[in-house]
């Protein structure tokens, strides 16, 4: 069996689902079930203990077989993210924390400096730290060094649906990484998720593409199948893409020639 290993946790599904942006908690739960996801992320700011109808956390906790990964979306500094992570662990009991730090609440671009600092602290505090980052190979290694359970580089801007715009950087991150690389943000179609998995990603995280679809449960299932197919293809080993043309007059004919 091929597992996604995050810290001491293993998951047979390689699809992680985001839970914002859905038209209702009911539709979101149907999509979670249809996706077969075993790890789902939910923003701490969408926890609402006072009002069950507005709360995303409690209905998710009631779904058997899934592990919750709270996220710090809304935090703009390391200090805020660390504070949020501790509240989230207290409320959810989950050791996972998806570190999302956006200095500007509009662009939703992750701040590498604050993210690094928050991850360093949270990993020391025993969290399974899953940082959302720009597709930066050096930052990915720095985060691995401080003990993150994975790195989650963006495929393209959140909610942009531009797919794997960062493919060159993702390939380097995957090649160099000893921890799972999870593409987070930007995926629009199942084929893009399959491609990410074929490239060697450990998992993909999808939210908008499913939530905004006309039929979120069906789209969630389509992503699950694509992720599974992409993963199998990666494990089986893709045929080489190289189609080297051989020059008619060999360029290396001089090698070993008699002098």
């Amino acid at each position, binding site marked *: 069996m091929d597992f996604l290993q995050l810290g001491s946790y293993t998951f047979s599904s390689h699809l992680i689902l985001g839970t*914002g*942006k*859905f*038209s*209702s*908690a009911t539709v979101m739960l149907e999509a979670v079930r249809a996706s077969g996801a075993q790890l789902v992320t939910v923003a*701490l*700011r*969408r*926890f*609402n203990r*006072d*009002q069950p*109808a*507005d709360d995303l956390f409690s209905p998710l906790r009631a779904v058997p077989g899934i592990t919750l990964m709270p996220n710090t979306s*809304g*935090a*703009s*500094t*390391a*200090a*805020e993210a660390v*504070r*949020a992570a501790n*509240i989230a662990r207290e409320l959810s009991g989950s050791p996972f924390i998806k570190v999302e730090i956006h*200095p*500007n*609440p*509009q*662009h*939703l671009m992750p701040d590498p*400096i*604050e993210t690094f*600092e928050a991850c360093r602290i949270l990993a020391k505090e025993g969290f399974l730290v899953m940082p959302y980052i720009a597709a930066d190979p050096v930052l990915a290694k720095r985060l691995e060094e401080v003990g993150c359970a994975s790195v989650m580089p963006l495929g393209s801007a*959140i*909610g*942009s*649906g531009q797919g794997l715009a960062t493919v060159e950087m993702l390939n380097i991150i995957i090649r160099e990484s000893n921890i799972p690389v999870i593409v987070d943000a930007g995926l629009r179609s199942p084929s893009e998720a399959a491609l990410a998995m074929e490239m060697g990603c450990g998992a993909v995280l999808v*939210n*908008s593409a499913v*939530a*905004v679809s006309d039929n979120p449960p069906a789209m969630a299932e389509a992503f699950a199948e694509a992720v599974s197919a992409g993963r199998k293809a990666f494990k089986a080993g893709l045929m080489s893409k190289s189609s080297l043309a051989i020059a008619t007059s060999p360029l290396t004919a001089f090698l070993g020639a008699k002098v």
Partner: protein
Amino acid sequence: MTSLPDWLTYNRDSATLAAMLDSSLSTSLESLATESRDLTLRRFGRTMTLYAPLYLSNFCSSGCAYCGFASDRKTPRRRLEPDELRRELSAMKQLGITDILLLTGERTHNADFDYLLRSVDIAAHEMQRISVESFPMSIKEYRALADSGCTAITIYQETYNRERYENLHRWGPKKDFIERLETPARALEGGMKTVGLGVLLGLSDPREDALNLYRHVRYLGRTYWRAGISVSFPRLRPQTGGYEPPFPVDDHSLARMIFAFRIALPDVELVLSTRESAAYRDGMAGLGITRMSIESRTTVGGYHDLDNNEKGQFDVFDDRSAQEFCNAMRAKNIEPVFKNWEPAYNGPADGNSTILHPVKLQPCL
């Protein structure tokens, strides 16, 4: 007379918006609506974030010709004392509200900065997210508000036409056009995470005001790169004093403006209040607007004192209950979101950053 800032007359990036706002050009309202809907859906999903206004005080020192609380109106004046404020907050919590906008008039000795700060402090213990729409303050005062749990300041320029502005604001501190114009920047320097901008539609040429509003948004975004910015589209409503808007904005023009702003600013929160009708708000949900007020009472004490027949700052148009409003959103496949913030993120935007950047960025025009 202080001259206008460069950014207000600079049109580097407002040409596209100008074209979209021009109804005589070929871009049809329907094609703008489609583009606006798609962008909104991708970026914000099928959700609508809700908030409610809470009037702390209707004392005022200014004479805005269009306002029901202007200092020459006969409206009874009062302010909420701490116990009344707690009752008001408790009544709002019963409605499910977690995100509130605290309002006062212009600065007076009856409702001054200390009063506002105390009120923010009380509200921050009860609610998840606090914004303030009040008088212009100093950077130091904004920082104190941010420290007490206020995350956003709403401050409308009302109109960017200086001549009209000075005529409409007949007396009082609000008469100073430049002072008002510089206020959002001061709020951000004071560590506010978000500023809400807007023009009061009906006061002046709406196209000119929309373009200047956009320039203001872009200027603030380039200078204060961490800043969240939201844009509101308030249309003048009937109010005490009977002011007739000289530049009425019809439904189609307002829709065009909202779509154009969404396309020009895909990530910015766009706000529509209960000044608009239920049908108009329902129609706009999902097409560009991402934040709406609900259950608005525009009187001081309007939530816990339901027998209050006083006239508010303006007449609310969409007077549906939270439940009715939520049902209408759900029927449109949109989730109403009451809590979309976490107090763990309160505090000045630059206050606890890992590495401080004391250098203020200078816009390159």
